């Protein structure tokens, strides 16, 4: 401290007061949730801020935040057409989300954290979107078989999501994935 006792070096923030721990998501309603309510940008916005790395993730919800943040990075790289780098982030995002899905496997448009605070909770849909993008990247690399496998996995995830929550986002993703896969005979 070198005598500068007044200097503000260490901050100890205590987020205290009443509240309750997060609760499990309620069963999904059958209302069609419009895209303006549930979309990728909104999910990113809710998870921006303090970065959670996979190494630091301890609680299941940390894996969600981490998976979303990795996906946000992947999306940036995808837009820049930095495909090999984007692929790494999509994979890392899916790894993190897959860990979470072992414990909480249901998507929910209003996952209650505490009090009246809820978030968009769409791990299955995010995995599906990651699979879609990874498939597109692998296709540009000439790896048709791998891309088809990605899209098949993506379709399974999006169907899981739609079972819990009917979203325009999910339906449009499902449509895209179906159009990319060969028609069933």
């Amino acid at each position, binding site marked *: 401290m070198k005598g500068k006792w007044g200097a503000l070096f*260490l901050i100890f*923030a*205590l*987020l205290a007061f009443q509240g309750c721990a997060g609760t499990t998501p309620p069963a999904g309603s059958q209302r069609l949730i419009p895209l303006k309510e549930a979309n990728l940008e909104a999910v990113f916005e809710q998870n921006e*801020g303090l970065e959670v790395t996979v190494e630091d993730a301890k609680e299941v919800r940390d894996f969600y935040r981490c998976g979303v943040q990795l996906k946000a990075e992947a999306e940036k790289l995808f837009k820049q057409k930095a495909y090999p780098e984007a692929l790494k982030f999509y994979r890392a995002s899916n790894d993190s989300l897959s860990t979470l899905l072992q414990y909480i496997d249901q998507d929910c448009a209003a996952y209650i954290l505490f009090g009246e*605070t809820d978030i968009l909770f769409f791990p299955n849909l995010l995995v599906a979107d990651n699979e879609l993008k990874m498939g597109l990247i692998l296709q540009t690399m000439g790896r048709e078989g791998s891309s088809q496998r990605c899209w098949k996995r993506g379709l399974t995830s999006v169907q899981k999501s739609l079972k819990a929550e009917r979203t325009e986002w999910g339906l449009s993703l499902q449509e895209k994935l179906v159009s990319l896969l060969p028609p069933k005979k």
Partner: protein
Amino acid sequence: MSTQYRSKGLISFRIDTKESRETIMKFLEKDPVKVPVLLDKTGKVTRLFGVWAHPTSYLIDRQGMVRYRAVGLVDWTSLQATSVVDLLLREG
């Protein structure tokens, strides 16, 4: 702990989420604390920290890095808690 470590450079505060000043004042009348209470009226701070349970405590080092997080009540007088704070205070 706040009083004990203040002279060593520890700054502590509480952040209250989405509650009115009146509610907090009433609470503080019953349970007075010397730690400043900051108001997070819109819940933005809570969102940016990714808080999903109350209370959640964070220890932030001199470089502004979040080094420790504790979800749930913490006994800040315990050996475990004080040793972590001591460790961070010793860092340059």
